[in-house]
């Protein structure tokens, strides 16, 4: 249904993953997960590629991408900072961490710094409420974070 692609932008692994999931129920979400895993987000080009490979209308793909908070359609920073704003973290001052990180990095929520190094996101419950307030940078988790620890955390990734 979608426009033909001359070259496949996906890695061999991703292509074989898509082939494996092609006819299984729930395939689109699994495949989009894997695309995001490979690129850090689902670009328009990647969405076009999935549309072409699965013969699914692009509108359907964006329906799913925009429904789930997890999916990103814009490129995040090299280091994506996710501040938990679930109930426990919020009560423990998660929003204050967002505010402080924002002023330290000069960006707002869901924005990327000009040099592309950092992006800032609010997320719901990362599953370790005992460590509230929690933030993650990439795959690293920081618990019981206070405002004055933030410059240190940032410099660790700079």
């Amino acid at each position, binding site marked *: 249904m979608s426009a033909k692609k001359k070259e496949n932008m996906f890695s061999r692994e991703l292509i074989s993953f898509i082939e494996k999931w092609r006819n299984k129920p729930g395939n689109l979400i699994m495949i989009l997960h894997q695309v995001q895993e490979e690129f850090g987000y689902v670009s328009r080009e990647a969405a076009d590629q999935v549309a072409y490979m699965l013969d699914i209308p692009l509108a359907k793909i964006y*329906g799913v991408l925009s*429904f789930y908070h997890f999916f990103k359609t814009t490129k995040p920073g090299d280091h994506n900072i996710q501040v938990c704003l679930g109930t426990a973290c919020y009560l423990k001052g998660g929003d204050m961490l967002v505010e402080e990180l924002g002023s330290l990095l000069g960006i707002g929520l869901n924005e990327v710094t000009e040099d592309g190094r950092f992006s800032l996101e609010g997320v719901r419950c990362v599953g370790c409420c005992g460590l509230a307030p929690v933030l993650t940078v990439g795959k690293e988790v920081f618990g019981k974070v206070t405002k004055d620890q933030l410059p240190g955390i940032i410099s660790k990734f700079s």
Partner: protein
Amino acid sequence: MNTVHMKINGKPVEIEAGSNILAAAKKANVNIPTLCYHPDLPAWAACGLCVVKQENSPKLLRACAAPVQENLSIITHDAELYQIRKTVIEMILSTHPNDCLMCARNGTCELQRFAAEFGVREQPYEVRLVDLPKDTSTTSIVLDPSKCIKCGRCVQVCQDMQGVFALEFIGRGDHTVVSPAADLPLNDSPCIKCGQCSAHCPVGAIYEKDEIGDFVRAVSNPELHVVTQIAPAVRVALGESFNLPAGTITTGKIYSALRRLGVAKVFDTNFSADLTIMEEGSELVKRLTTGKGAIPQITSCCPAWTDYMEKYYPDMIPNFSTAKSPMMMQGAITKTYYAEKANVDPATIYSVAIMPCTAKKYEIGRDDNMHASGFKDVDLVLTTREFARLIKASGIDFLTLEDEKADSPIGEYAGAGTIFGNTGGVMEAALRTAYNLMTGEDLKNVEIDAVRGMEGVRTGEVDIKGTTLKVAVAHGMANVSTLLEEVREAKANGDEPPYHFIEVMACRGGCVSGGGQPYATTDEVRAQRIAGLYTDDEQSEVRCSHQNPEIKQIYADYLGAPLSEKSHHLLHTTYTERPLYKH
């Protein structure tokens, strides 16, 4: 027929199994309010307005989605249901702007109607409006997300009925909008401008681009010579806007109204429907007899279908009839043949088409072929809905108008021309003339039942004195794929083509229920409008396009013969593959 027996408010009702409670209520003379439900579409119980009670059960049912059952006893209206429905309306209104007086659907809005019927006088809930700009990117329709009530009709229409997939629910919860993928404007999406979304939208969230102002300016400009044409389907639907039953033929009153609006000449698209048949019929016979050109030949008069083909089936371009649509043919000969005959400078002609269709607004600017006369062949398209408003705003008492006749030399039509407005009609009209072209004789019975009806896809065989012509008809854009896949498969396998001639119309029922026709179109209304066109055909003195005296005249005086060089220049066009998404 399998029937079930049930009760609606205590009244016994016998109804076909598989029906919904809405239909059962209708049988008991009860109307249940609905907003998301539309008889053209599968029920999906989004709005909650149609809740009813099941006797002896605490459960509320959605009448649109709940099937009838034996011994079911339903309460459709009581004090509690009244309150629930009123609350549903108030909650929808809390996210809906209340600028009704300036809305495209003022007076025809389904939400406004319910707010009035339920006497909503205050706003008990916090108001949370959507602040997003209108999408005015297409030449045909406007999307206003601030008015959207998320009923989903347009998405269902776009995806299920039309197979276009331009619109989808994007986002979730409060932030859901109906829009194309990737934040693209509608014009960069696969949208084919058929306007079925606008015809099904219950509120003012999607509507035709209103260009009445251009018309009014043109007729008041003394430098311009305004010439009009009306499409077949308009004449059997416009009356609904003046409380006439669907299917009432109002051709004579339309001609009269146009003259009162200040138009210099009143012509008829039906004339060019006959002209289309001469060209397209000759093209078909040429393809069949000379072996030149792809088989099957596929009709091309529907601009939404043409747009769809160029995006979804570009490999079918060789199969497409090169004949332009009747509207574009009429435009081209208006500014050449007519201008010459009437000694009018074509540069001063302003050519207006009254159409049942929003895609026609797009078609007039498709490409350079739409300037075959050296000028813009059609300057303006008004839909039937716009035309009805224009007549009312101009103070014309439509119902009491005397019937008038169209002007010469491009206003007369055969019955064949008028049935262009319904599914199967172009096929039937073409076969009437193809028979003559192939045998030199005229059909004794011009009514070809094999191609009539409302099934989404119809196939049949027509005998032309020993030659069997395999024909197929599809309407409702999503239905075309079954036919085209068959053609593709035969081609891939090197088999004989499964059909010789295929007619496609994007809208269910054909142009009679085009995206620009009066609101509240259902299959019942479609059937009435189609019956109106067949009646118009039956009442015509001349039934076949090639017998239309003005058609004979234009070929004798100007075009020479069908498929002549002049015909090719003015009446034929080309197609190009177009991307589904422009960016």
